[in-house]
């Protein structure tokens, strides 16, 4: 049972990545071009035409094309955010755990503070400073998420630091940098990968909320989150506008979580549930 779901999730994720990479070459419509005359057309089976399988949005753009190219945008946001938040969080967390002492205390307080940041307000402020842009979203979401990596990296570093092989490396006279690079980082990486996996969903949903408040991925580029946000006024009249990107989000989030859970089970069951 577990295995079947895990495989299904993996396949789904692979599809997601493939769609993000190759999808735009496969759909015939331009996700940015539409015709006002063909706006809000329902999907094929709900009375629409084969021209637009999943219908059209409020500017007459093809939903399928937008969902496909939205995959790329959402994936890019995820990857960039996770790369930024992950590297900052990991670096600080490792430092905190490795050095210890007052630095650890200060950094961990900072993490607590970051956890209690009213993120969305900050996002709004930042959004207001320079308008919503891809960079801002990434910045703001990273600002929220780095702390999770820092926590995990610190905890794991503390664990690994106490492993005898680290002491052995020290008795061999290895420098701190080498010890961190060779002995600590590779051994805390799996836990961080799990965090990263589970954060994919968080990022997508957070981006959607920011879009709702008007500081998400700027139009006309479609992200799944902004598509759901755009479609909220049509929940009754043109349900497909928000439902399809919503389902896309749902499937991906579900898949990454299942994969993430399975990874945790495999990599380090002690981390189960302690992430994201």
């Amino acid at each position: 049972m577990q295995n079947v779901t895990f495989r299904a999730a993996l396949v789904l994720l692979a599809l997601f990545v493939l769609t993000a990479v190759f999808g735009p070459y496969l759909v015939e419509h331009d996700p940015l071009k539409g015709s006002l005359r063909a706006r809000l057309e329902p999907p094929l089976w709900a009375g629409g035409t084969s021209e637009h399988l999943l219908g059209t949005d409020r500017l007459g753009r093809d939903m399928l094309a937008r969902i496909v190219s939205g995959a790329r945008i959402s994936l890019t946001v995820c990857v960039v955010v996770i790369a930024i938040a992950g590297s900052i969080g990991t670096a600080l967390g490792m430092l905190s755990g490795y050095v210890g002492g007052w630095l650890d205390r200060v950094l961990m307080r900072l993490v607590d503070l970051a956890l209690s940041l009213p993120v969305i307000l900050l996002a709004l402020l930042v959004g207001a400073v320079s308008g919503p842009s891809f960079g801002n979203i990434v910045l703001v979401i990273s600002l929220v998420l780095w702390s999770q990596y820092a926590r995990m990296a610190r905890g794991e570093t503390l664990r690994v630091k106490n492993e005898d092989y680290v002491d052995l490396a020290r008795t061999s006279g290895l420098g701190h940098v080498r010890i961190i690079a060779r002995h600590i980082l590779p051994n805390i990486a799996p836990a961080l990968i799990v965090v990263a996996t589970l954060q994919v969903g968080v990022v997508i949903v957070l981006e959607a909320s920011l879009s709702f408040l008007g500081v998400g991925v700027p139009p006309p580029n479609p992200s799944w989150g902004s598509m759901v946000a755009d479609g909220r006024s049509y929940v009754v009249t043109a349900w497909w506008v928000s439902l399809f990107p919503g389902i896309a989000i749902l499937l991906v989030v579900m898949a990454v979580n299942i994969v993430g859970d399975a990874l945790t089970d495999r990599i380090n069951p002690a981390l189960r549930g302690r992430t994201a």
Partner: protein
Amino acid sequence: MNAILSTHALGRTFRTRGGPLHALSDVSIDCMPRHSLGVVGESGCGKTTLNRLILMLDTPTEGEVRFKGKPLRMLSVAERRAYRRAVQPVFQNPYSSLNPRLRVRRIIREPLAANTDLSGPQIDARVDEVLEAVGLTARDANRLPAEFSGGQRQRIAIARALASKPELMLLDEPVSSQDISIRAQILNVLTELRDEYGLATLFVSHDLATVRFMCDEVVVIYLGRIVEHGPANLICTAPRHPYTQALLAATLPADPDAPAMAVPPEGEIPSPLAPPPGCAYHTRCPFAREICRSVRPRAEADEAGGAVACHMVNQGGW
């Protein structure tokens, strides 16, 4: 003959929430070439602390460790490298002492690459050599630790220690996590290597029987202090300190007909945060007198080449 390594009134006090914790106090030992010294004591008595101080993983709060007569903190960079080559540890837990992400070859190379000037091929040759010395094969060098059993891992750890041709091996309970059949194998490997390479060993253990097997000389520690010190056969047959006697009594022989020992242990081990004044063992000692409660006994050397820190023994009290 000069000691490879010696400790002089070595002490380590940890600052903890509960106050100062004297993990180790006034410990002086000498590790002579080709000589094997055992350190026995129960959990928390400071065995690992001693090890870490020697390995420079921790710094003493009192006293010092000397390498061939020179205090560790005064070593030059080159001497430090030499020290790191000369003194090699093997730790208790073979699962934690091998980095699971590195192949065996990398693990064994590490001290060589860091502390010797050997070239790449020379190092590789050395890796193969030590692997064979501990009963593994050169092929094993390309595997990951996870592919080995506990006993094999401990062999890898020993190979790693052996690689830089040390003079002294520090063995911190190297077999206590092993099964009986594996334990014997490792102990044999260690004694064989010791004889073959002419190594000195400092063997730390909580088990008197293992120490007896491994060592010429034994130091008994209780709550961070040496209580008795002497040749292994004497300690295990005619212990004089009441604690050593209790420890011996508690080391149950695999013989249903063995007589119960005269001095069975009593009471709890006191917290190292609040060690009893005077002789730390007086709370559990059946022979304790008034003086034991107030005056800390000094270790006095005797004719057998040992020393006992006990008022009663030293004053011929019993």
